[in-house]
């Protein structure tokens, strides 16, 4: 498993090509890439703050849980911090498993937990100079209950 927390951009294609390469003990690879969204066309950039040390630990814990629960062959999480422009990739998750259901479910589980349990905070900077911390959504917390109920 690989966990990377970085400011630098990454190329999802390159990451996918390298992911679980050379292994034949898997039948499915699922990837998810999160992108900076600008619905209103007013966003200049997003700045992502994180808690160095805890971030890596929290993500590793989530990855280990997913790997155990869905018997993943391989798992990758990349999450950026710092300043990001609309359209830039924020993060990427890749899961590899014998079967697709496990790979899909594990990727969803990882995304749900990264949203609410990895110590990142997003701040939006609009083109007119105003700033706003992105609030956590009630839905995000609700999403975790599904996985707890299924356990």
């Amino acid at each position: 498993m690989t966990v990377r927390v970085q400011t630098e951009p990454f190329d999802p294609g390159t990451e996918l090509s390298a992911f679980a390469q050379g292994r034949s003990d898997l039948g499915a690879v699922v990837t998810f890439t999160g992108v900076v969204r600008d619905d209103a066309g007013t966003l200049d950039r997003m700045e992502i703050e994180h808690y160095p040390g805890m971030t890596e630990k929290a993500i590793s814990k989530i990855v280990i849980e997913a790997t155990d629960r869905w018997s993943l062959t391989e798992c990758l999480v990349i999450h950026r911090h710092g300043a990001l422009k609309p359209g830039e990739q924020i993060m990427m998750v890749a899961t590899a498993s014998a079967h697709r259901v496990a790979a899909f479910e594990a990727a969803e589980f990882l995304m749900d937990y990264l949203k609410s349990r990895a110590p990142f905070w997003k701040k939006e900077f609009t083109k007119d100079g105003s700033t706003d911390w992105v609030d956590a959504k009630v839905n995000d917390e609700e999403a975790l209950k599904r996985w707890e109920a299924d356990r």
Partner: protein
Amino acid sequence: MIDVMYFAWVRERIGEPRETVETSAATVMELVEELRAREPRYAAAFEDLSALRVALDQELSDFDASLSGVREVAFFPPMTGG
């Protein structure tokens, strides 16, 4: 002596990312009360605890938790990763 860290708007409201606090607080809640009593900027940051989360030595915890043996306390709003 305990390291106290603040993130996101909690950091902005308090005006610094971390500080070392001399305290005899037994629980997170006692530490919060001590900080609140210090200055209005702390009172403002800790006004609504339902809007805050706490980590002890980089593990998510809660306000009733004991500070025994803890070296690092962090306060922050609900996380918005992903």
